[in-house]
């Protein structure tokens, strides 16, 4: 039964997550169950997404930035965390890999190699926008005990993940990326000059955890449906696991459901590194 005025549930999300198409895909499936509910995604910068929740403009948020999430949780702005998916950060860089990071033993070693590479024009592109990815990158430099920010090859673009990858591709530089955005651009042929050079599914600092939250200010029917939607994602691991496999040839997201306890611990750890 379609009612004339569907209930609209607004969810702010980071642009990079939205651009993979996962959310729209899930929303379509959800609508099959709840035809009266229209899930509306507002793709924005990651920190802006949480800011919108704080101001009460959205009912839920999808983000992947534990340090920020923690801050807003502590402020009492968001609640009811649902970790619904994870994947890994990867280090991408020029195919020739001048810093030889594909031989690195761990991510810290990889960053050290980038730092001490023979330089002509081996750039490192930093998001520089205070996003979760940016925070993680800074954390890794810290673990490595080096500070690159005053180096001429260290470029802060103040941009989204897509733009950072495009810049890395053009300048033949390295950058830290989530695998989803990387695959989306790769498959469309936008970043032919760079490859995923380092990835690891064991390195906790490369773990990229996607969570959904309800905004505290959200009430009534909208909140009920938002909660339903979060539960729907959480309780349908197949959808998350299979999304994009046909199109991209690899898995973009792993459902968090099967790793529930562990992933929560890891999340708390990551939230502490901000």
């Amino acid at each position: 039964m379609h009612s004339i005025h569907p209930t609209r549930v607004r969810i702010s999300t980071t642009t990079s997550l939205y651009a993979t198409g996962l959310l729209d895909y899930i929303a379509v499936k959800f609508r099959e169950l709840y035809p009266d509910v229209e899930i509306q995604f507002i793709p924005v910068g990651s920190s802006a997404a949480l800011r919108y929740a704080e101001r009460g403009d959205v009912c839920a948020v999808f983000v992947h930035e534990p340090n920020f999430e923690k801050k807003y949780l502590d402020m009492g702005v968001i609640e009811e965390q649902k970790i619904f998916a994870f994947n890994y950060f990867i280090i991408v860089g020029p195919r020739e890999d001048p810093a030889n990071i594909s031989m690195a033993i761990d991510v810290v070693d990889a960053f050290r190699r980038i730092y001490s590479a023979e330089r002509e024009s081996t750039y490192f592109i930093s998001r520089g926008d205070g996003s979760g990815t940016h925070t993680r990158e800074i954390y890794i430099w810290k673990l490595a005990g080096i500070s690159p920010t005053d180096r001429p090859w260290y470029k802060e673009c103040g941009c989204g993940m897509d733009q950072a990858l495009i810049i890395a591709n053009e300048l033949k530089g390295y950058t830290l990326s989530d695998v989803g955005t990387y695959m989306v651009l790769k498959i469309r042929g936008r970043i032919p000059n760079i490859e995923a050079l380092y990835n690891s599914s064991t390195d906790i600092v490369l773990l990229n955890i996607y969570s959904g939250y309800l905004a505290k200010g959200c009430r009534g029917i909208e909140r009920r449906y938002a909660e339903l939607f979060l539960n729907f994602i959480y309780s349908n691991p197949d959808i998350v696991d299979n999304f994009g496999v046909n199109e991209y040839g690899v898995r973009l997201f792993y459902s968090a459901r099967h790793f529930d306890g562990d992933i929560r611990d890891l999340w708390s750890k990551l939230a502490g590194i901000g």
Partner: protein
Amino acid sequence: MKAMAEIIDTILRSIMVSGVATLMASLWSIPLAYLFVFRNRGSVFIEAVIETLVGIPTVLLGLLLYILFSSSGLLGFLGLLYTPQAIIIGESILVTPLIISISYRSIRGIAHLYYEFALSIGANRVQRMRLIVSQSLPGVVAACITGFSRAIGELGIAMMIGGNIKGYTRVMTTAIALEVAKGNFEEAIILGIVLLLITIAISIAIKLISRVYVA
């Protein structure tokens, strides 16, 4: 094919939203322009303010409106944020100074002349106003078209208070921005060219109207 349908949907929504915004803006801008011409006291000040507002950066206006419309904002209770109505309101505010300033200039250019003529030939008050309105109409229409062109090409407001929601508040400019983020340059270029064609059509329309006007 689904993508095509979506693109067309976005284009139609853009035209609709900007069209309504322009119409709304005309509703108050045109009478205001006439008012400023008729009561020409302090006109230098008003002119300066209006012309300054014409150049307001759209992100700034978008941001201010967002803060106003957001649920913790002054007008939050209206629930307008992230609706097409919000974009319409935002764009109508954006183009108001533009429509006023262009109309004002075109009306002022002729009002005195035709006022005197109407008086000289014995028109009564209503007939005088009617004459000035009819003689200045082409310039005013051109102003509205210019306003539409500005509205449809605008990104900041549509993004900040529209939210770029698929199938609901996504317009051509926000769609272009998103397609670029997705790496779909081809789609972005197609949308960009459609937008260009629309603005071409508009500039031709203005040319034709102003030809009638000179006539």
